[in-house]
């Protein structure tokens, strides 16, 4: 039986099946008809989505489906890619983030990002976390800065493990600790939104469990958007799930609904493991 992935492009639909939450949350980030091109190649086709505040939204889908591309639009990391072009409108708190007079530095201070591979700076643990507050001028004094560093590490559930070696290099930590250090570094600048691009794909199951636990704690204060390859992970940590396929947002809705009762056939196929 041919899966949808093997069907000709023309026969695919570009519409999105949406299931609203039972108790709708306020919208934090909104994408309206977003198209992304890398040179002549179109990577995203008219993605429209509302991302709720103080909840975890998971983007799932097979490789190359555009979920990371969309995530990287949300803090304009695509700006750094030569030939990348974004059309449509993305708003954060109803403000267009591609507006010309919006400062991209300020945007990235409000929208933090955690990458696939843990990438601490080759500096001390303290310096890693202190970097953001320092460049954004968030600490008025040295004590202020220390306070921010300690509280960020605490909120990233890393403080107890590293409190005796804050001045040792961050690259000396284990992979899971490095990833939590990167999360601490991201929350040190008090962002509203944290983007996570497959944050656990380079980690072992125990480290993954710790990071997932942390994500669950963080959602009380932050809007979290996570791209993941693992459907189990999406099911465990997220409240809403969006399924991307070949650059199209196919279906989005409450996580339990997507996983137990998907409406679109492609979503069903993916979730049941027919492709992906």
């Amino acid at each position, binding site marked *: 039986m041919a899966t949808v992935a093997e069907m000709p492009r023309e026969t695919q639909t570009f519409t999105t099946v949406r299931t609203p939450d039972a108790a709708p949350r306020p919208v934090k980030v909104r994408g309206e008809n977003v198209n992304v091109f890398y040179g002549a190649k179109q990577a995203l086709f008219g993605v429209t989505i509302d991302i709720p505040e103080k909840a975890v939204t998971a983007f799932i889908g097979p490789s190359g489906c555009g979920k990371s591309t969309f995530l990287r639009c949300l803090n304009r990391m695509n700006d750094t890619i030569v030939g990348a072009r974004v059309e449509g409108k993305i708003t954060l708190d109803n403000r267009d983030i591609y507006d010309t007079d919006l400062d991209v530095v300020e945007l990235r201070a409000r929208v933090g990002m955690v990458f696939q591979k843990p990438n601490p700076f*080759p500096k001390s643990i303290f310096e890693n976390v202190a970097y953001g507050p320092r460049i954004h001028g968030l600490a008025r004094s040295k004590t202020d800065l220390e306070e921010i560093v300690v509280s960020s590490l605490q909120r990233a559930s890393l403080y107890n493990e590293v409190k005796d070696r804050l001045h040792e290099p961050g690259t000396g930590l284990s992979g899971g600790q490095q990833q939590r250090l990167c999360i601490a570094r991201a929350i040190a600048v008090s962002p509203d939104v944290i983007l996570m691009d497959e944050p656990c794909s380079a980690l072992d199951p125990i480290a993954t469990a710790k990071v997932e636990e942390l994500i669950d704690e963080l959602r009380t204060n932050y809007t979290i958007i996570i791209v993941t390859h693992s459907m189990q992970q999406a099911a465990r940590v997220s409240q809403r799930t969006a399924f991307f396929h070949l650059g199209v947002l196919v279906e989005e809705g409450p996580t339990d609904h997507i996983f137990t009762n998907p409406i679109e056939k492609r979503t069903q196929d993916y979730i049941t493991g027919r492709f992906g």
Partner: protein
Amino acid sequence: MTETTYSGSDAADRGNDMAARRKRRDAANRRLQYYGIGAISFAIGLLALLFASLIVSGYTAFTQTHVRIDFPISATHVKPDAIDQGNYRLVVRDALADLFPDVTSPADVRSLGQILTNNTQFFVRDAVLADPSVIGRSVTLEIPASDPFDQLNKGVIDRNVPENQRRVTDRQIGWFDQLVAQDRVTAPFNWALFTAPNSRFPELAGLSGAIVGSALTLLVCFVLSFPIGIAAAIYLEEFAPKNRWTDLIEVNINNLAAVPSIVFGLLGLAVFLNLMGLPRSAPLVGGMVLALMTLPTMIIVTRAALKAVPPSIREAGLGMGASKHQVIMHHVLPLAMPGILTGTIIGMAHALGETAPLLLIGMNAFITSEPGGITDAATALPTQVFIWADSPERGFVARTAAGILVLLGFLIIMNGLAVWLRQRLERTW
């Protein structure tokens, strides 16, 4: 799929065939390995030959024959109120007359005086100037023997060749042997090779002027090429759009790195000396020319170092909301620095050994003092070697080789520093 079964003889054939193929394969591997070993041995052999020939011809220059002489400083030749105007030539003559009372005819006195360096009187003057209390007494000094007697003492001049074919006469040899018998002749380490500037007389010539000149030239070269090279590389690597113009610039930089160095010398002559009127033979101009020559290498090395910084570090910085400037200055450049420094040192070592462009801007002048600044006339180590190699005196043969050894020593130190830096600062991420 078809099932294949081998009969007994087939399997045996196959076995033989495989054994033969394996033998050929192993032989080919071994051959390749031997070619490599052969090539490396050849290269190392040539290098050893080079060093051996330099050391064999140059080692004698690391000692210098000295003659210990007592100079009576009489108040008639040297007036205490005008020490620097004393007649030291007579002081030297008197000292030699004391040693050889039977040498009296003017011609003999002159040829006796040739045993000591031509500048003996100035050594005596300097000693008296340093300590005026010796007037009226005598002062004992170790005076460098002149070049022919230095060579004689080192066995370079053969006593068995007929008298008319060597630079020292039998009588002079007799006097010198007398001095040896009196235990007045020594051959200590030749510190003057490093502390004295150049001289017409091999026994007095040293490299200090060239070493200081090279240091000043390299300083100018570094001050110019390091910041310009890094700035250009950062622009090309981090900011420049990828289009036809930047491609053209890149191709040109790569080509410039391959331009013969003498062309840069011609440029320096035409532009820096003739057009801009900068001083001739000056380390300033030498450094500028060498900076032009090193810049392409510098840019290429810096770009490679910047490229080697993993993109994840840039992403981390940008993701934190750091501006491009902050990402480059706080993260990329510090991480690229070990690579940049290694490349810089190797570039500087290259510049240190460069001769051709310096010849064109006059840094092969005969200069008998150390340069006091970057606009004073100076020579550099390679050009000093060039000058000495051109000099007819016998002593300069060994000194040329010694000069090359000193230059090689500096190059080895610089390259060793680069290797050490690379290992020391190498990071893992």
